[in-house]
């Protein structure tokens, strides 16, 4: 259902979209953005690849990534009990504000949430699109 124009434009745009999503996730504690927003950008990259090229071999690995994201998030929270005293305490050294290594556990939580949200939204899009294809 895609033309050659759409395929060429997607080939050009996709690397920048993935880079922008990773930038939004990693700089979540410095600039506007965060795990959820960058994860949605990465998930819509997967949607674009599937809609244009029809590649879906990698779908079965997305649930593994989602589980890894959720488990890392919960592991950070539970290790806060041991190292900081209460659940989800900010137990890593804060660093100087404004640099990329600052904020304690906030960048780690952003990365875990971004992984989970990207995989989760990709799975959602794939399931709905497969259902629409099956209906037609």
């Amino acid at each position: 259902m895609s033309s050659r124009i759409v395929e060429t434009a997607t080939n050009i745009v996709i690397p920048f979209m993935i880079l922008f999503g990773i930038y939004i996730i990693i700089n979540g504690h410095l600039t506007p953005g965060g795990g959820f927003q960058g994860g949605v950008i990465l998930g819509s990259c997967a949607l674009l690849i599937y809609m244009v090229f029809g590649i879906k071999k990698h779908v079965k690995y997305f649930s593994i990534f989602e589980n890894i994201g959720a488990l890392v998030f919960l592991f950070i929270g539970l290790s806060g009990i041991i190292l900081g005293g209460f659940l989800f305490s900010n137990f890593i050294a804060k660093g100087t504000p404004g640099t990329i290594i600052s904020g304690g556990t906030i960048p780690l939580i952003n990365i875990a949430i971004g992984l989970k949200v990207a995989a989760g939204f990709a799975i959602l899009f794939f399931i709905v699109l497969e259902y629409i294809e099956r209906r037609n």
Partner: protein
Amino acid sequence: MKAKIGFIIVLILGILIFSNLKLKFGNDVGITAEMYIEKGVSETGAVNLVSSILADYRVYDTLGETIILFIAILGVSMILKGDKK
């Protein structure tokens, strides 16, 4: 019957609206907001205040959000991912 229910709904709506007219949002009631603005950077180390609220002060909200996303995926896959026959 319907008129009575409608009257009660409009009455509750009016009470909710006119009881909130006295409240001043922003200056007098926002003690926690002022606390976040003053101590947010020094307590969490993150410059982005929204991110420090979402991932440090109100991290249970983020936990619930991930659980909601998981349940949404579970429901969609249970309903729509029928086996091919």
